[in-house]
């Protein structure tokens, strides 16, 4: 009993402390409105990931009589913010894996197929199994596609060999990335980190992983015989100027060699050489270890649906929605949330947390013949790990303003242990509470 008691009080305290923090990285949204709206509307949600599952739960609680259909073939649900922790050897691959089924509410019809086509004029979705599903309202929450083929010589098959990692690909690939990083940091050598020129999910992850690799090089005493290169795709490390400056200082402090305007176009796994497109032409950089982050784009079904932006993010195919209401600009009965939404910031779980209640309120108001001024301000959050045990809790909005959840208490641009605690123990439960529509 004594052990239970001690464990109980410790863990409860940890939880209490960290939950307050999780409020920051996954901000608390207002609880779903208590008043139910009666409707016979047919709502189709494409995708049962973070945004899709959360919306299925929220809408089924909020709407009385609606037919809610969710279309997604994936049986596994992946907690993607855990991938960096897996790739740092701190969590097993299973840390990020649950099932899609456990997050979906009863009363929602789950079609376990992919979406093959969308016709916004006739308001139908065709599945890859040939089923036609009519909708009154459509929510695009498909997530995005990792376009590994966009880098010549790169594919998922080469992850985990020849010093090549790529933790974005999934939990097993994140574990394989850790094995390569662990091996590399034993001996040292040249580590090369990159990011794509496309919009991407969690733009902080490549930067974090550079810090984490540096951490292990130092811990194992191999930093002095190593070189750490970060190849930024543009002329800055991070889209928010004040964060870029802070990171630039930290990168200098850690002795990283940063090169700008380098976009990886090819990799030769055998020769361990990566080729970059730069303003001065192609440049080759050799590596002993690298974490490849592929170009990202919307899934083909969105790119080819006529619902994508045509004049922005050309070739990437993000859904053409208003950045504040998340409603489609040409089809008012279509919304987008999560990675697929064509908004300037916010391909993170924290953004989803903030976007989902906006889509919910906008859609419910529309069904009720009403309007709402509920809007998404571009909030996103990035727990920027700077070593094992420390992080910076960076939160910002569309206007590049820092939006700290605990102003004066948790400084956003300081490397803090408390920010690490939030990332390490509180984010995942907060994320799961979000999926259930309870946070």
């Amino acid at each position, binding site marked *: *009993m*004594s052990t*239970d*008691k*001690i*464990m*109980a*009080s*410790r*863990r*409860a*305290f*940890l*939880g*209490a*402390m960290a*939950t*307050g923090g*999780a*409020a*920051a990285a996954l*901000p*608390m*949204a*207002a*609880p779903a409105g208590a008043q139910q709206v009666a409707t016979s509307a047919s709502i189709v949600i494409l995708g049962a990931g973070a945004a899709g599952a959360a919306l299925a739960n929220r809408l089924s609680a909020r709407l009385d009589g609606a037919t809610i259909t969710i279309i997604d073939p994936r049986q596994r649900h992946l907690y993607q913010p855990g991938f960096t922790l897996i790739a740092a050897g*701190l969590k097993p691959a299973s840390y990020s894996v649950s099932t899609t089924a456990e997050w979906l509410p009863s009363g929602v019809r789950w079609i376990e197929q992919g979406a093959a086509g969308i016709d916004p004029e006739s308001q139908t979705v065709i599945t890859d199994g040939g089923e036609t599903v009519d909708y009154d309202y459509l929510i695009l929450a498909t997530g995005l596609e990792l376009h590994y083929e966009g880098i010549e010589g790169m594919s998922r098959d080469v992850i985990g060999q020849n010093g090549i990692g790529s933790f974005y690909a999934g939990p097993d690939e994140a574990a394989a990335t850790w094995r390569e990083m662990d091996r590399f940091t034993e001996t040292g050598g040249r580590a090369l980190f990159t990011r794509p020129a496309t919009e991407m999910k969690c733009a902080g992850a490549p930067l974090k992983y550079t810090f984490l690799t540096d951490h292990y090089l130092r811990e194992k005493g191999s930093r002095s015989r190593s070189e750490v290169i970060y190849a930024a795709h543009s002329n800055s490390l991070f889209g928010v100027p004040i964060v870029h400056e802070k990171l630039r200082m930290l990168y200098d402090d850690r002795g990283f060699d940063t090169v700008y305007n380098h976009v990886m176009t090819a990799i030769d796994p055998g020769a361990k050489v990566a080729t970059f497109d730069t303003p001065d032409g192609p440049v080759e950089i050799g590596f002993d270890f690298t974490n490849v982050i592929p170009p990202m784009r919307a899934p083909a079904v969105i790119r080819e649906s006529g619902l994508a932006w045509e004049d922005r993010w050309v070739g990437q195919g993000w859904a053409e929605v208003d950045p504040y209401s998340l409603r489609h600009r040409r089809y008012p009965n279509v919304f987008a949330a999560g990675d697929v939404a064509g908004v300037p910031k916010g391909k993170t779980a924290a953004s989803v947390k903030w976007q989902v209640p906006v889509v919910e309120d906008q859609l419910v108001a529309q069904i009720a013949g009403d309007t709402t001024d509920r809007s998404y301000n571009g909030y996103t959050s990035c727990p920027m790990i700077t*070593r*094992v*045990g*420390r992080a910076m809790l960076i939160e910002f909005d569309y206007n590049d303003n820092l*939006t700290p*959840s605990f102003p004066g*208490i*948790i*400084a956003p641009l*300081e*490397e*803090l*242990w*408390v920010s*690490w*605690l939030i990332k*390490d*123990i*509180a984010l*995942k*439960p*907060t994320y*799961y*509470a979000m999926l*259930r529509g*309870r*946070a």
Partner: protein
Amino acid sequence: MENPSFGMFIAVFEEMFGPVLFWLMVTVAAAVTAVYLYVLIRDRAVSWRKFLLAQLSMPVGALAAVVFVWWVTNSGLGDVGGPVDVIVLLGVAALGAVGMAVFVYTVQSLIRGASQDDG
């Protein structure tokens, strides 16, 4: 940021520990507190002898709490990076100390009873 609701905190805790373990822990914590209050009322006095041992156990509780948090979170003293970290660390220690003292006092009272010492 909008204010988090109490229900949301409960939801996050349930996800963190699983609903069964979470409510079991709440029950255990509440039960120890209730027994502590019971022995205080039963004895109608604070036993200073028991309190002395409880006090002596406080550093142990404080240290155990801090080490446990470091262990769970793959971190250590060197990761303290700013004033808020020191405050949180002291808070963890204080909670561990008080929790341990209450626990030790309560266990002594239950085992030895009221009559053995009146301090």
